């Protein structure tokens, strides 16, 4: 028996298959590129040769695209990212007290006690310090994002970069580059700025106790891990599947549900042609933006209407 977890995030779509002991059997990490349906289908194409649809006993979805993904694949559990990340971390280590999670568009802190979430926070209205910003800077410096962290580790004298706002951080970096500072020193300075921003903004007022887990795509960045360790004065653990913890958590939740049957539609949906469109509903003054999913010219679902006048008609 296997369980499937799907995390459709802003930047990446992660799909994992776990066994009954919550070991990862298969995993796929793809870029969402703003097309969640395509991303899930791509992932299924890779997995379907390795795992049989009939072996899947439960499906969980999470991430900002969890509802659309749930609808597409037939999920048994639809869970928010915070609970999913916490569940996955707890399955590895019951003693984890703090989870730092930095993803593509948002960053979170989750504090736990006795295996239970006690508090959490997410960045408010600003995405400074998240993965997309690092991605963009790597691109601008023409350094592959995978090597970004190694550069930071090479630095001996970090340069101070203003981390409060992504736009200002970028102009600060450009100014320092123009002055001739080494790239690795600037990158390390950037990592430190992001950590400062995270601790003063997202984690403000929260008790950070060890053991600390660092997960989400940004945890791949060794420079960020070291900057966190220096700022917090203790070790920060990056789990092996740091970038798939959300998907793993969703899969575990579907396993914990222990339903006798699953809604899973099978990996075969990878070959079905889905189309999306949107319109503004004029039914009332709310003027909701409604998204429509079509399968071979037949409407199969609506999203985004507040009153349910469209989505209510199709069971999700």
């Amino acid at each position, binding site marked *: 028996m296997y369980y499937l977890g799907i995390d459709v995030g802003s930047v990446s779509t992660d799909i994992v298959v776990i066994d009954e002991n919550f070991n990862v059997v298969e995993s796929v990490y793809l870029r969402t590129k703003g097309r969640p349906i395509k991303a899930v289908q791509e992932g299924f194409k890779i997995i379907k040769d390795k795992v049989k649809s009939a072996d899947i006993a439960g499906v969980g979805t999470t991430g*900002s*695209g969890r509802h659309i993904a749930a609808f597409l694949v037939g999920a048994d*559990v*639809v*869970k*928010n*990212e*915070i*609970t999913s990340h916490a569940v996955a971390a707890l399955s590895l280590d019951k003693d984890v007290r703090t989870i730092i999670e930095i993803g593509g568009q*948002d960053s979170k802190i989750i504090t736990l006690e006795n295996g*239970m*979430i*006690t*508090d*959490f926070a*997410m960045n*408010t*209205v600003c995405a400074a310090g998240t993965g997309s910003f690092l991605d963009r800077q790597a691109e601008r410096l023409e350094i592959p994002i995978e090597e970004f962290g190694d550069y930071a580790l090479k630095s001996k004298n970090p340069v101070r970069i203003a981390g409060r706002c992504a736009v200002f951080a970028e102009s600060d970096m450009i100014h320092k580059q123009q002055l001739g500072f080494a790239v690795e020193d600037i990158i390390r300075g950037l990592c430190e700025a992001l950590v400062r921003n995270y601790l003063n903004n997202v984690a403000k*007022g*929260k008790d950070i106790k060890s053991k600390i887990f660092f997960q989400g795509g940004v945890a791949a960045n060794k420079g960020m891990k070291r900057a966190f360790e220096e700022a917090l004065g203790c070790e920060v653990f990056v789990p092996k599947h740091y970038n798939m913890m959300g998907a793993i958590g969703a899969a575990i*939740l579907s396993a*914990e*549900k222990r339903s006798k049957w699953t809604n899973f539609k099978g990996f075969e949906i990878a070959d079905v042609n889905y189309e999306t469109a949107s319109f503004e509903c004029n039914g*009332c*003054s*709310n*003027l909701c933006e409604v998204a429509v999913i079509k399968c071979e010219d037949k409407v199969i679902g609506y999203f985004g209407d*507040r009153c349910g006048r469209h989505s209510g008609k199709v069971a999700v």
Partner: protein
Amino acid sequence: MKVTFPHMGNVYIGAKFLMDGLGIDYVIPPFNSKRALEIGSLYSPEEICLPFKIMMGNYIESIERGADTIILTGSCGPCRFGEYAELQMKILKKLGKNLDFIVLDLPSDIGFDELKRRINKISSQSPKSKKEKYMALVNAYRIIGLIDALEAKAHERAGYEVNKGECKCLLNECKRKLLDTNNPKEAISILKEYHKKMDEVEISREKNPIRVAIIGEIYTIIEPFSNLYIEDKLMEMGVSTKRTLSPSWWVYNTVLLSPFGLTAKRIRDAAKEYLPLGVGGHGQECVGEAILSYEEGFDGAIQIFPLGCMPEIVSKSILPSIARDKNFPILSLVVDEMTGEAGYQTRLEAFIDLLERRRGYVLSGN
């Protein structure tokens, strides 16, 4: 004279029947929408708080429908609401709109004579007798009280209802019916009828739902558009909610009790240990309500405020101490012009999850 007023939750219902009773022509601005926000943001200072922008949108949409007089309550406290009317007057004047702004401030701020002069500007337009005017005021006060109470009842009972969505449907149905009449007496009987219907909604007390208090800045907790319809979302999730601040609460506390210095006394007393002084807006009330909701056995509280709200920033920094001391989870949500709901929904679901798991539920399912 054709008057209008900004939206804030059920305010339009009370204002509508007041004007109906007085026999004064009025325009209810179209319900808050992306359009109101877009127009409002276009003409507002970029850094001002969200309510200002939505209100500007309301005014302009009403002016398009023929309104020439805006009625607004004022404030001379330390919160930025105090400068709303002045700034809005200036902006509308620059836009070439020829209007009259009637700002109703407390007599302690502007004096009795000035308040009387301002009220007279409205009441002199009414063809009704003195007694009828008085009755219009009394009826409007009863109507706003009844609709706020009905809403509170729906929010509380939604957690216990047997047929999901019944409370919400009844509430919306009642609001629709109220717009079809211009007679305050009839409105009162509609409201009483719906109170009865709401009392008869089939509920199961064994359900023991999660109970959450909604606290924070008054506009953003009362006006559903500004908080992305948080109370509707919680009703759908089967959560029972309570919000103390409402238009009728405001009228009772600010207009009727303030001459005696008794405004929100119970709430302010509760806040004393953590925040002994008023910090403007309803910052002290927010702290007091957090403590009261803990004492009343709620599972948690959600604080909502617009980006840049000074009084609520003060209370936000105090709430973690209360959460720690009382072991009482509090979620702070900041609202601004963003209308994307995904991140907001995530925080809300995660918070309800946290509260459920605290209670020892293993898994709530979806």
